[in-house]
């Protein structure tokens, strides 16, 4: 199947054109075309997954796409574990969303367009995950953005919706600048290629100057920020909730927004080497992720719109993934991507179901007590919430735990702390949402009822998946996921080697030395690597053994290790994996539960004093610090509320006013002042004026000359003789 992987996106792509061109003829039946196409893709993805697990053979296919000068630009597919995993996730969620939308969107004005866009999105997203080069990645990256724009502004009659779409697209474009620049830099430094494997390999092999690599990585990070909602470019994501809810589930929770994370995972060599992830300490990638997860989570507290709560939650969870990759926990990050897709989609679709029941409102203040009226929704939503909060053995627990453990093991304490903070907040705000919606009295005016089966079946399936998928990488499952999906790239050590672009004179000077050293260190390094790998535990040793048999390459985990090798030697690079740690797991569970308890305390039991928000936040913070280990309910209540109030409000304010405001401000300034200035002042006046001025001057001079022509012949004669006399003098002087 992997050889035919291009069919997987091609089927929905064809569907897009079919629906677009003949949609009117099919009417509502076009949805079945879409579902059929996705079904086919899903089947192919499943077959592919099976084959991958079976053979684990990376398959690449490509054709020439463009050419210029000496370079031939190829495009093709690249199917490995990561791609396989993504194919499964995307086709699964997309298929379920397609089905769900049958009912949810029934009777919509642009039903056919909706399905067409959904098909196009699926196609683009599938293409994105199997792209073998950065250019194809960029293409599909932009295409998913376009689909996102189309679907967010699906109900474009309302200006707010189209504004949201615009905001999404333009914000993403800002990030795309980074992507474009990053890709271009990588194209050149990796030896004029867009091929991802080559780029990864080149990045790790030491042929590229570190500074350049850092710039490239930073550029790509900007794209990650925009696409995957990282601070400070996350602002579009909450607004994107203006689109239909299934779209939010598919695009803005499960798939498109993780494209950034996927890209980091895909080009991990670049990030790993560029941000020196293996060296520990702190790096920008981890920092961005860490900050995002806390800020995202904190803002989720103050939302009344259920979809916005989920949106901030998504931001926060994406922050986890990015942070995971930033700390070197590659598998953790990718695994979290995997699990998150299911439970977050489940939550969104649940939210859709709620709104379907409650007169298309998403306002939690108009809900409450829906537990009895919508039991399936309640059940699935609860599973999703618990999975998100990291309650074992649900999916979120395993993946989040792995991230925190990775941060610990790779020596990123700050990230770990931030992770815990975010975890507690996550549990708390999800608890809050759960209680506000399903418990207490119903506060709305509609007559809520359970949604039809067409909607609830997908939700239930997702809930079921949210329960089980986490087990794939559980210790008792032999960390299967980690074996199936891993980052590995063949690297030739060129640090200090002849012909390496590395560093001009310095490198040249050191060359001889290095060569000698390298040769001596060759055997040693090999052994060391092996030894270390062996010490890592059975699973790793096993994996290595396999590889050693296959590719006969030594496996290394860090650049330092590569550098120790002899120049020219080829190794297999893999980020180091850290497996289950009971301490971290326990803490995270505890923290999750604490969060839930806080929420329970406040929202379910309604024990919190009403004026708690008025408490001076500094005093609250002080109290929190001083009475750190107090398990006093009131104190906890106070701290929780205090944190949830002003800090979240503050960060929301920052979000809305400063960051959003800055962007809007830049936008408004550009539009209101800069652009008119450029247009009215510069273009119309200065530039135009200059040219018109030339014309006027000509005419003005013409007028002056005309005065000489006063109509009297003797005056003409006078000019004649003046001219004669003067010119005669000139001639005489020249002679």
């Amino acid at each position, binding site marked *: 199947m992997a050889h035919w992987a291009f069919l997987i996106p091609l089927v929905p792509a064809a569907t897009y054109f079919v629906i677009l061109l003949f949609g009117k003829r099919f009417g509502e039946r076009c949805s079945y075309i879409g579902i059929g196409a996705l079904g086919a893709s899903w089947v192919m993805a499943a077959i592919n997954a099976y084959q991958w697990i079976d053979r684990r053979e990376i398959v690449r296919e490509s054709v020439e796409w*463009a050419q210029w000068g000496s370079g031939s630009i190829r495009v093709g597919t690249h199917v490995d574990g990561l791609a396989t995993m993504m194919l499964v996730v995307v086709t699964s969620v997309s298929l379920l969303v397609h089905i769900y939308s049958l009912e949810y969107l029934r009777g919509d004005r642009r039903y056919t367009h909706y399905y067409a866009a959904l098909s196009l999105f699926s196609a683009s997203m599938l293409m994105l995950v199997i792209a073998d080069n950065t250019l194809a990645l960029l293409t599909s990256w932009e295409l998913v953005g376009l689909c996102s724009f189309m679907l967010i502004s699906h109900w474009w009659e309302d200006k707010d919706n189209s504004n949201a779409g615009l905001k999404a697209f333009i914000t993403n474009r800002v990030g795309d600048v980074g992507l474009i620049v990053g890709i*271009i830099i990588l194209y050149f430094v990796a030896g004029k290629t867009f091929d991802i494997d080559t780029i990864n390999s080149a990045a790790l092999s030491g042929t590229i100057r570190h500074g350049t690599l850092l710039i490239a990585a930073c550029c790509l990070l900007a794209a990650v920020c925009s696409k995957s909602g990282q601070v400070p470019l996350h602002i579009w994501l909450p607004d994107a909730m203006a689109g239909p809810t299934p779209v939010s589930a598919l695009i803005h929770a499960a798939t498109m927004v993780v494209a950034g994370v996927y890209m980091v995972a895909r080009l991990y060599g670049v990030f790993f080497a560029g941000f020196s992830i293996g060296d520990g300490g702190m790096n920008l990638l981890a920092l961005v992720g860490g900050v995002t997860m806390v800020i995202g989570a904190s803002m989720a507290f103050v939302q009344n719109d259920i979809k916005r709560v989920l949106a901030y939650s998504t931001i926060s969870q994406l922050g986890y993934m990015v942070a995971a990759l930033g700390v070197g926990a590659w598998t953790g990050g990718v695994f979290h991507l995997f699990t998150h897709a299911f439970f977050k989609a489940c939550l969104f679709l649940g939210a859709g179901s709620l709104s379907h029941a409650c007169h298309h409102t998403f306002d939690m203040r108009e809900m409450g007590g829906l537990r009895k009226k919508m039991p399936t929704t309640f059940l699935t939503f609860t599973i999703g919430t618990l999975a998100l909060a990291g309650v074992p053995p649900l999916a979120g627990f395993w993946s989040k735990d792995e991230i925190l453990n990775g941060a610990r093991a790779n020596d990123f304490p700050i990230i770990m702390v931030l992770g815990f903070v975010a975890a507690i907040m996550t549990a708390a705000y999800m608890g809050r949402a759960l209680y506000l919606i399903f418990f207490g009295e119903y506060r709305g005016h509609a007559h809520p009822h359970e949604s039809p089966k067409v909607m609830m079946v997908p939700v239930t399936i997702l809930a079921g998946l949210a329960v089980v998928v986490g087990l794939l990488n559980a210790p008792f499952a032999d960390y299967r996921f980690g074996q199936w999906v891993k980052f590995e790239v063949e690297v030739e050590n060129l640090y200090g080697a002849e012909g390496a672009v590395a560093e001009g004179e310095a490198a040249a000077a050191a060359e001889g030395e290095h060569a000698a050293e390298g040769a001596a260190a060759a055997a040693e390094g090999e052994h060391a690597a092996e030894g270390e790998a062996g010490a890592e535990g059975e699973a790793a040793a096993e994996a290595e053994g396999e590889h050693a048999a296959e590719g006969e390459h030594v496996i290394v985990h860090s650049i330092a290790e590569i550098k120790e090798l002899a120049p020219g030697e080829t190794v297999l690079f893999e980020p180091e994996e850290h497996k289950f740690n009971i301490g971290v797991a326990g803490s995270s569970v505890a923290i999750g539960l604490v969060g839930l308890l806080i929420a329970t305390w406040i929202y379910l039991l309604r024990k919190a004093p009403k004026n708690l928000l008025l408490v001076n936040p500094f005093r609250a913070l002080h109290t929190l610090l001083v009475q750190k280990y107090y398990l006093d309910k009131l104190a906890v209540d106070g701290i929780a509320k205090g944190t949830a109030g002003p800090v979240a409000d503050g960060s929301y304010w920052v979000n809305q006013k400063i960051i959003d405001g800055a962007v809007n401000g830049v936008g408004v300034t550009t539009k209101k002042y800069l652009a008119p200035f450029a247009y009215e002042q510069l273009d119309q006046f200065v530039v135009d004026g200059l040219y018109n001025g030339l014309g006027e001057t000509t005419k003005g001079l013409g007028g002056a000359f005309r005065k000489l022509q006063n109509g009297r012949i003797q005056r003409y004669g006078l000019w004649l003789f003046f001219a004669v006399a003067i010119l005669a003098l000139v001639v005489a002087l020249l002679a």
Partner: protein
Amino acid sequence: MNWFDDWGITLTVFIPIVGAIIVLLIPKGEEETIKGVALLTSLVTLGFAIGLMAEFDYDDTAKLQFDVNTSWIDVINSRYHVAIDGISLPLVLLSALIIVLCIVYSWNHFPEPHNPKALLALMLVLETGMIGTFVAQDLILFFIFFEVVLLPMYFMIGVWGGKNREYASIKFFLFTLFGSALMLLSFLAVYFSSKDPLTGQHTFDIVTLSTAGVLDVSKTAAVVMFGGMFLGFGIKVPMFPFHTWLPDAHTEAPTVGSVILAAVLLKLGTYGFIRVALPILPEGAQEWAPYIGLLAVIGIIYGALNCLAQKDVKRLIAFSSVAHMGFVMLGIATLTSAGINAAVFGMVAHGLITGLLFFIAGSMQERYHTREMSRLGGLLISAPKMGWILGFTAMASLGLPGLAGFWGEFPAILAAYEPLSVLSEETFRTYMVIAAVGTVLAAAYLLVMYQRVAMGEVPEEFKDEHIHDVHGPEWIAWAPMLILILALGVFPKLLFGITDDAVKHVTDGIATALNATSK
């Protein structure tokens, strides 16, 4: 097909003008005949262009094919030398196609004052000029064709234009004329500095002049000569400080005028750089490249900012041309084959995309009788198909990958990362980043335009009006462009495959002349 080798290009170039004369001879009353003859002429021309395409030897696109070289003005050693290579071919096809589409488009709604005879004749004359420019291999012949397009366009704007047409047409004419005068001076300077190795005389032959050693000039002289050409071509492109004629011309021109202007006329300038200025004066090019690059990126940003300030759809599209041609010029300024390939691709893509945008803007104006974005809205409701086409084209215009526009922009930006080795990398990398930022602004103005025009509710004033969706002639005119935009976007090799060798020939020449390592 021996006769075709000899006559193919000549017929393609001159059939339109014969058609124009026939059109002029038909009495004014017989409108159907006039239209028929004009359409037939343009179709035959397109047929010949396609014949050229079919007979073209794609294995050697750098070679000049269908070469015809006979005497013309012996006094100044100027010859009738026409031929096409991989750079010319796409542009010839584009020109022939656009004219057919324009004639079809205007079939039933000629702009006021109603005078199909004159308008069609002008369009056919334009066609001769455009195709002629793309095939000429002699500087004087090139110059003549380059100038032939001037008059018809001037009249087109001036007679059939909007309110401010006189100002616009004069401005267009004067700018271009001024540029041509200086360009001609440069051509002459080149002529007098040249020596044809075969005849020992001065020569105007572009091919000969592009050969190393034919031109004997000091670096300073080369820089000055290039400056003249720069002005001539740069005004036509138009590059940043010389662009002010463009918005006026576009805004005032009738729809087909805008389309032809955007689709083909602007390319004459960029084509001139690639065909004439760079190969003949590589040393001049080297000195000018950073400044061309600078003006190009200023154009990108400046054009985009101005777009944001526009209230008028057509004017917005016009300013977007400034930005897009900035990308083309940036590609050219890198002097690399990636950059120039991108430029040629950008020329074709911009021709199709912006041409289509102008078509749509024209159709909208015809229906709404206004181009004020604040008064428009809900196109997707009133005329959904047109709304979709507009959306598609806007996306293509903002450089969405998978559509043609991308392949003009991205490789240009890419090429700026690593310009020819004799150029400053730092400078061009800065340009690269600025140009990339330009893409954000492009998205902004196009989407804002789309939002204003196509989305939202239908404004009160048009609520009760019947807005006709895309009709027959419009479909016929637009469908080929839509298909090409998509096809070129998905299979860029269709075009890159043709241009690459020819461009490489040019860049290799430049690199050799400058002792640079060709990249």
